[in-house]
Structure formats: structure tokens, C-alpha cells
């Protein structure tokens, strides 16, 4: 997460009712987002969801059919890309192949006709920032993928923009390098303190570094929130499925018990689970509503013995382990419940004592979760 030592710089970005079509394809459909000064803001969604189009509109490579984009309250849509207070890190790096690393990074400064001493000072400063000292005389095709992306980042930052736009900057790199560069990117954000807008289709990238995330699909923004909000209380089924893994069920509200100010116990009939479950819900759900219910796999406990029923708030289902997947720090279990439904359960491994007896293939197990670990995503109809 950002903020901290560095003073918050950069600018606010307001996107209001932006729509953009390419022929009959609606890339953006009435999108409104407001991004705060110095925020690390991610646009997250599957390919074709419009996130890159939105970034290109902010950068000035596309103009929207309708709507307004403003930096610090000033509409920038009439301003050419080269005059905007934003710089972009491109997915394919877009380094100039005919120029050395030094000249690539110095490119914006040469255009400004700064003195060579000043250029030298600043290029050295930014090559230090992205840890590329010793590579400045190389040509881009002599660099590894990670180094190329560092050059692209330094080149985009050297103009001291108010906003850095990052278009899937890590997608061409391998997993290990990706996570390292992501942490570096976050620390660069902390040092520089300008607004970052980060486009990605990788939910784990977005969750780990963003201050806030906008989840997009089919040209629409489905939810804007902190990583915690997006993960714990997804606004739609799509968000729940796209961010992390989940168990998703259609349900009917059968009873709402509002016995106390803190107690909003809702009973859901879930045909797929062959029974009813309890869930706490603070929204105004009413009996008879069709809703969508989710419980994250890591919130389900898996045990060999039936857990003692403490109160009525524990939902327990019996099943057989169909497929255990061991992955070191955790195990994934695909459990076939007695009524035939498949339930995903993730068990975090801690230490020998707490882990309990090992659960294996074909074991009969009990899957349980408490009422406040489930979540009603959305009301499908009244």
C-alpha cells in the first residue's frame, strides 16, 4: 500500500460518464471513476473489458464519444497526448530500438532541450531509482524483459508527470520476476507519491498493491473499492468469481430474523446444497427474494469429525473428498457433498499440531462455516 513518507503529489482524476464505441463494439459504457491524488488505483478486468481503452483515453491516444476526463478539475480532453501531465508504461515496453538505454530515458528531456549536464544528472537519478546503473550504454535488445520494463518505467517518470499510467506492465514477464517488480513498483510509488493508474487482468497483482480497485467487465465499472472490500463484499457475481475463488449458489430468502440491532440472521434455502443455511446480512433482504450467495473456500473448515454445533450459526455439510490438491502452504479440497454438489475448500497449513490429522482422498469429511463468513452478493429479483 502506498502513502507514508513521501508527500502526496500527483493530481486528482475525474472520469465522468465516459463512453466509447469502436463500430458496434461498446468498449466503454457510461464509466465514472474518481481517483484521488497520489492513489495507486487499479483497473481490473478480463481482456476486452475496456480497461485499456480507458487508460488510452486518459493518456490521450483515444478520445471518448461522450463524457469528461479531468485532471485536478480541469477538463483535459482537448489537450494533445504530448501536452498532458501523464506518462505511460506500455505493455510491450515500447523502447526505441535505435537508442541506448541512456538515450531512451533521456528522450523526453532532449525534447525539452535541457542542458546535457542537467540531462545527465536526471538520467543518473532515475537509472538509480530503477536499479539500472551499469546498463545505460546498452541497446534495448541487449536487455532482459525485466530490465526493459525498468527502462520503460524510468523513461515514463523522468518527465515528473502527475500521473503514471501502467498498461499491464508486468504481463510479459515470468511469475517470480513479476512479483519482485510489483514490489519495486509499489516502493517507487511510495517514494514518488504521484497518482498511479495500473491496468491489469491479474487479480492478485491488483489486490497486493492497489489502494483502490475498479473491477470492470464489458465496458462497465462493476465495483470500486479497497482490495479488502472487493474481496470480502463483492458487488456482483462477476466480481466474486473474478477476484479469487469462491463457491457461488443461487438461493431464496426463507426467513429474516432481526431480533436485535446487531443481529441480522437470514435463512437461505439453497437447492444445490439440499437445505437451508444461516448467514448474517445487514442489508434489507426480505423473505421470498432470490439472491446470490457466496462463501470463500478458505473460510470453510474441513474436519474428519463432525464439529460440535455451537449455537445455530454454524452451517455443516457432509461429503467425500474427491480431489485433494496439496500445494505446500495450503491444500485445496474438492468435496462432493452428500447431495452431489461440489464444494471447494482451502485449508491453510500452519504447524504440525494445529493441522490435525491429514485429510486424504475419499475421506468422509465435514465442511462447516459460520453464518458471518458467508455473504449475500446481490438480490437477483424481488
Amino acid at each position: 500500500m502506498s502513502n507514508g513518507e513521501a508527500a502526496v503529489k500527483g493530481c486528482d482524476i475525474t472520469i465522468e460518464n465516459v463512453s466509447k464505441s469502436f463500430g458496434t463494439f461498446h468498449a466503454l459504457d457510461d464509466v465514472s471513476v474518481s481517483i484521488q491524488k497520489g492513489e495507486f488505483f487499479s483497473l481490473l478486468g478480463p481482456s476486452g473489458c475496456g480497461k485499456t481503452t480507458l487508460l488510452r483515453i486518459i493518456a490521450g491516444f483515444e478520445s471518448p464519444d461522450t463524457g469528461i476526463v479531468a485532471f485536478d478539475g480541469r477538463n483535459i480532453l482537448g489537450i494533445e497526448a504530448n501536452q498532458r501531465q501523464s506518462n505511460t508504461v506500455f505493455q510491450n515496453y515500447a523502447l526505441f530500438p535505435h537508442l541506448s538505454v541512456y538515450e531512451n530515458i533521456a528522450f523526453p528531456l532532449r525534447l525539452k532541450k535541457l542542458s546535457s549536464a542537467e540531462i545527465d544528472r536526471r538520467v543518473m537519478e532515475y537509472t538509480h531509482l530503477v536499479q539500472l546503473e551499469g546498463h545505460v550504454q546498452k541497446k534495448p535488445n541487449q536487455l532482459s524483459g525485466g530490465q526493459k520494463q525498468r527502462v520503460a518505467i524510468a523513461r515514463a517518470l523522468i518527465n515528473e508527470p502527475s500521473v503514471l499510467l501502467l498498461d499491464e506492465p508486468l504481463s510479459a514477464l515470468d511469475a517470480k520476476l513479476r512479483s519482485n517488480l510489483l514490489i519495486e513498483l509499489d516502493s517507487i510509488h511510495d517514494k514518488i507519491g504521484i497518482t498511479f493508474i495500473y491496468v491489469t487482468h491479474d487479480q492478485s497483482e491488483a489486490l497486493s498493491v492497489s489502494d483502490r480497485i475498479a473491477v470492470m467487465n464489458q465496458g462497465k465499472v462493476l465495483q470500486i473499492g479497497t482490495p479488502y472490500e472487493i474481496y470480502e463484499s463483492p458487488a456482483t457475481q462477476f466480481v466474486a468469481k473474478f477476484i479469487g475463488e469462491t463457491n457461488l449458489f443461487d438461493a431464496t430468502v426463507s426467513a429474516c430474523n432481526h431480533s436485535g440491532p446487531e443481529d441480522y440472521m437470514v435463512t437461505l434455502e439453497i437447492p444445490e446444497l439440499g437445505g437451508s443455511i444461516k448467514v448474517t446480512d445487514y442489508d434489507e433482504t426480505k423473505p421470498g427474494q432470490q439472491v446470490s450467495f457466496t462463501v470463500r473456500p478458505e473460510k470453510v473448515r474441513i474436519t474428519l469429525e463432525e464439529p460440535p454445533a455451537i449455537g445455530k450459526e454454524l452451517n455443516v455439510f457432509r461429503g467425500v473428498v474427491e480431489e485433494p490438491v496439496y500445494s505446500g502452504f495450503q491444500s485445496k479440497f474438492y468435496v462432493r457433498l452428500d447431495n452431489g454438489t461440489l464444494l471447494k475448500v482451502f485449508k491453510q497449513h500452519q504447524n504440525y499440531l494445529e493441522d490435525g490429522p491429514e485429510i486424504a482422498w475419499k475421506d468422509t469429511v465435514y465442511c462447516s462455516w459460520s453464518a458471518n463468513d458467508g455473504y449475500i452478493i446481490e438480490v437477483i429479483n424481488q
Partner: protein
Amino acid sequence: MKAGKTLAGRNYGPAYSYPMGLWFTVFFLLPILIIVVYSFLKKGLHGGVEWDFSLNAYVQMFQSSYAKLFVRTLWVTLLSTIISIVLALPCGYAMARSKYQTLLLFLIIIPFWTNSLIRINAWIAILGNEGFINVTLRNLGLITDGLPLLYTQSAVVLVLVYMYLPYAILPIFTAMDKFDFSLLEAARDLGATKPQSMFKVLLPNIRSGIVTAVIFTFIPIFGAYTVPLLVGGKDSYMIGNVIVDQVTKVRNWPLASAFSLVITVFSTAGVLWMIGTSARESARKKTSAGVQEAVQ
């Protein structure tokens, strides 16, 4: 290594190129040798040569009238080449970014189906006194006398550009096609104006294509003789015309050979320059590929 020495493992590949090598030696190198030798001989009385060493041809070549002709040829060639390149750049750019590349390439190639003499004569029909332009302008009442379009230096340059433009477009298009146009967006993003992004990013990256285009237009135009003969005036003679005249009319073969040699030397210098450039380029790419491997 040992396998290479056994009969079965021997590589006969290079042997297949021997007939080609022989062909080139006989039919390419030999005529050039003959020209070189002839240029140092005495002119025969009724054409041909006398086998006597002489520098006469070269002395004649440095006459002031020929110097003027040489400068004019160089000027017309440079002008036509530059115009061709300047026109080819936007053409190549448009073709590389177009959805209809195949169709456009096809359109460029269509003129080659027609004999060049016929195409030059078509220009006479356009530019002549009773040609398309003059007739149209007269019918519109804009002029009374015909404009002197044909048999001028400008007509020569115009038709030369027309003839050799495809040779400039094709290599430039090939280079543009390989160019990553997102680099232009990157340049704009970093503060470059549209012209700056063209001159600082696009042109340096298609340099090899431009070099090839210059050579492909400069060399044939430098030796051109049909175009100045057919659409040029009496002041439009180029070296190519002198050579033809010396061979067919004046019958001074040593002088014709000496002029040919000048053209060949100029052309060879150009080709060597091109080879040098591409060799340096590939050497650079090779070392970088090595580094890439080392990195991985």
C-alpha cells in the same frame, strides 16, 4: 568432424552453386572487363578499337561540355531520387498501416506489366502540345497557346520519378511494415510533437529501407537514357545518352566505355555502402543476440 571426412557424410551443397558462379563470371564479369580494357584503347576508324594503349578517352571525358553534362546528370538524378524518396515515405507509411496491403502492393506492381517505352509514350500523350493537359486547359479557356510541358528538364524529372517511384516505395514499405507503430505513441506520450515523433523515432528505425530505396532509384536513374531521349529537350541529355550516341553514331567505343565505367564506379560505390551498412547492422544484431543468450 570425423563424419565430415567420410564420403557419405560429405557436404556437396556448395558444388550446386558452381554453375551459377560460372554463369556470372562469364556473362557478368567478362563484359565489365571488356569495358575496362576498351576504355584504355585507341578508337578504331570505323568503330571498334585499335589494340594500342591510350588515355585519350579519359582526356576527352574531361572536356568542359562533358563536365556540364556530368553535373546535369548528377543533378537530375539527385533531384529525381530525392523526390521519389519523399513521395515514397508517406506511401509506404499508408500501405504499412492499411487494411488493404495486398491490394495496394498489387497496384504498385501493375505498371510493370507494361513495357516502359509504352509508358513513356503515354506521358508524351499527356504532356504534349496536343496532349491531355493542354487540350483540357484550352477547352476550359484558361490558355490560348499550348504550355511547353514536354521536351523540358521538368518533364524528364517527372517521368523519371514516375518510372522509379515503385522501386523506392517497395523497400520503404517493407521497412515500415516491420516498424512497431506503438513507438510513435510512446514518443507522443513522452512529449514529442507529431513531426518530432516522425523524425526522431520513425525515420531512424526505417533507415535501412530508405538506404535501399536510394540505391534502387539512384543507380538506374543515373544510367537512364530512354526517358531524356523521349521526353527531354536538347538540354536534357544525360550520360546514358552520350554512351548510346558514342556507340551507335560517333562510334567512339573507348569514350563510351570510359563513361560506362564512371557510372559503374558510382553504382558500385553505392552498393558497397549499402552492403557496409547492412553488415554493420547485422553485426550489431548478432552481438546483441549473444548477450541475450548469456542473460538467459
